[in-house]
């Protein structure tokens, strides 16, 4: 039995320790906002925060996470008004949307480290894949979010 606190709620997860956090979140906790894209830490669709750090949950076994604090896209803000979410709306970023939970979670963690990033910082810091190709708006949205967070 592994104890995970997901978005502030404690869950006792009765799964094998090699279970990737992604599947514990989606199939056991029942939160489906975190997405499966590749399963090998390549695409970032599954990005969540573990104890405040962005992690690709498809490649993090829950065995090492007993007692961890996990934040998923559903827990990012109570009202979808986190500055990154607001910036995403303003720039109309998502197309199909499948990658976007991961993009947003990656961007939130990234902006904590780089509150005023340059384009080059963003290019180096956000490596998630978007098959729909929303990068142009995504880049603008990260700058906008940085501005909103400053204000």
């Amino acid at each position, binding site marked *: 039995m592994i104890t995970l606190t997901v978005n502030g709620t404690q869950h006792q997860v009765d*799964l*094998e320790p*090699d*279970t*990737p956090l992604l*599947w*514990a979140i*989606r*199939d*056991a906790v*029942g*939160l*489906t*906002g*975190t*997405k*499966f*894209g*590749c*399963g*090998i830490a*390549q*695409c970032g*669709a599954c990005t969540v925060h573990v104890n405040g750090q962005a992690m690709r949950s498809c490649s993090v076994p829950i065995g090492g996470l007993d007692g961890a604090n996990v934040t998923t*896209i*559903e827990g*990012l*803000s109570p009202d*979808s*008004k986190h500055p990154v*979410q607001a910036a*995403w*709306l303003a*720039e*109309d*970023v*998502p*197309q*199909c*949307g*499948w*990658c*976007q*939970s991961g993009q*947003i979670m990656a961007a939130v963690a990234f902006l904590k480290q780089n509150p005023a990033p340059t384009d080059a910082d*963003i*290019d180096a810091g*956000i*490596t*998630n*894949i*978007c*098959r*729909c*190709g*929303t*990068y*142009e*708006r*995504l880049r603008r949205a990260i700058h906008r979010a940085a501005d909103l967070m400053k204000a």
Partner: protein
Amino acid sequence: MDGNRTTPILTRRHFIVTAATAAGGLMIGISAMPHLARAASVMGQPWNDDTAAAHEIDAWIVIDPDDSVLIRYQRSEMGQGSMTAVPMMLNEELQADWSKVRIEYASANRNHREKKIYGDQNSNSSRTINGSQVLVQKVGASARERLIAAAAAKWGVAATECASANSVVTHKPSGRTLRYGELAAAAATVKLDKEPAIKTPDQFTFIGKSQPRVDVVHKINGAAKFGMDAQVPGMVYAAVLQCPVPGGKLKSVDEAVVAGMPGNPVVVKLADAVAVAAEGTWWRARQALARLQPEWDVGEAGNTDSAQFFREYRAALDGPAKTARKQGDVDQAVPAGGKTFEAVYETPYLSHSPMEPLNATVHLQADRIDVWVGTQDAYEATEKVAKFAGLEAEQVYLHNSFVGGGFGRRDVSDEIAHAIAVAKVVKKPVKLIWSREEDTRHDKMRPMAVTRFKGVTGADGMPTALSIRTVAGSIVKAAGIPLPPNGVDFVAVAGLAGNGYASIPNVNVDYVMRDTHLPVWWWRAPGQNQNIFALESFIDEMATANGQDPYQFRRKMLAGKADWLAVLDAAAEKGDWGKPLPKGTGRGIAICDDAGSLCAQVAEVTVSPKGELKVNRVTVVMDTHYIVNPLSIAEQAEGSVIFGLSAALYGKIEVKNGVPVQGNFDTYRMVRLAQAPKIDVHLLASGGPKWGGAGEPAVPPLSGAVANAIFAATGKRIRSLPIMDHDLSGST
């Protein structure tokens, strides 16, 4: 059956992006000016488990007494924005208050029961808009006239004295008003003597103004429900492994090895695959599947590889061919002072790789089946489900979801077939998910092609003859569409037979159909996505060898074609064509017509002395003839550039021992932010009889524009894709 009903999230926080139309010009601005505004909405769950509702005006429109309006959208939302744009077209006529409009998917089940009241339900070939426009305008106009008739009857006045706007009918002489919510019940019973005429484009007041897409609010907080997000009580999870050599069969598999593994795994044998269903998590199913060591019957295909395929395709260039187009005599003598050209272009197999791997959740019962899936064609998928399940289409309840990327892949329904096959064995609801590796390797691929060009230019440097022969797989055959009498797959030669260059007097276009064991299918801008790369590169070869500017060369070839020239000229102007560039940097240009629209692009690239390539900027000009939602058209153009660029730079599915090699994003690479160029999009709306599509036309020109830019920067001609296979070092 409401196992998957989720709490509706009725967020109404939206931003609007306004479009500023350049005064007197045709260029549509897409400047993002976000401010809070009123807009329509959708729920996180786009389908409705009920197929009918109280207060229906008709199958498309529900108006409640409180004036809220529900518009049913009959196709799919996969990021292309049509779930917003199609209801916008309907509302152009209906004249409802857009802020009170909610949108949901139309039921495919009802469409089957009510004689296709919603028409076709596919979202492919970029035809969601042009395939819906007349139909939904008629639906909206009819409802509006019935609302007006209901008001006129209440007042005892002539309908011609009434007008409607913003969900209110006004009796013009007296100024009396009635709200749509007060009229809906009566309007539903009105029979019009004559259906009203629909508006012509000059009468539009709503179409053409940027609206935020209704789905976006749910795609920033995890609320949007995709196929893979379905949760059905009692469901088990299934993973599948298909024969590694596509087309092969399962011989045998030892099921005993999974005994005792977590989740009580059950092995299900299919003709060409093996699946495992497990309780609790999909991971358990996948772990159990990984332990199986199936024996496969792969046949002759097991001895094939890509190099051999390309050799065979090249050899087929000199064999028999079918004629797609013939004009003049390509073999006449080369004019004095003329030049001859010959080049062979090659493009590999590609996987669609939508971001959401294929999946389907099914609940099969004796007299009913529920399917949760993201499909590009809910109507056709319903028919297929009925066949797979042995039921009638009326017994199929397909809950179409938000689609996590389609690009042409999500209308085959092979993933649904797997899920139903497993459900028949385990007799429980099943959520079946393909791994990324299955999704990539068992794609229905973009065909590979080898294309040979022979060109002749005259003393003035302009082409006098062009002879093209392409050897390529046949999507048309794969789709079961009869070939035309000339035996030519018209998709395989799309773009080659014309592309606007009608000024060349002597032209031959031939086709050789050649397939391998890899199945092929529609892939964003089918045919054109590879043919335009080849053609626009070869045009560039002739231009540059004759010392001509590639843009001016195309201008001359397009002489007299005002619509093409407008797009080409705008791309050159916006893309800074001709402005000085540093050493190692070059610009390339390409143009095509696709899905009824014209698109030209200028790409700017830099190649370092070490051979590193960076695409700095891509300028897109697209003429879709009409524009419903400028914002989502611009987004489609931006996305198409990236989609095309992943293919141009990295895209290839190789085959070794019959097995597709690339399986995941570590080897089937995608453009990420670091490689994403700046993209500027400019839209034109030239009008005319046809509405063009927007989801595909910006894919084909990209690879040609980039390859031509590389030539401008380096003098190296790229004649095969992907570009990463070419060594550009020392060329700048």
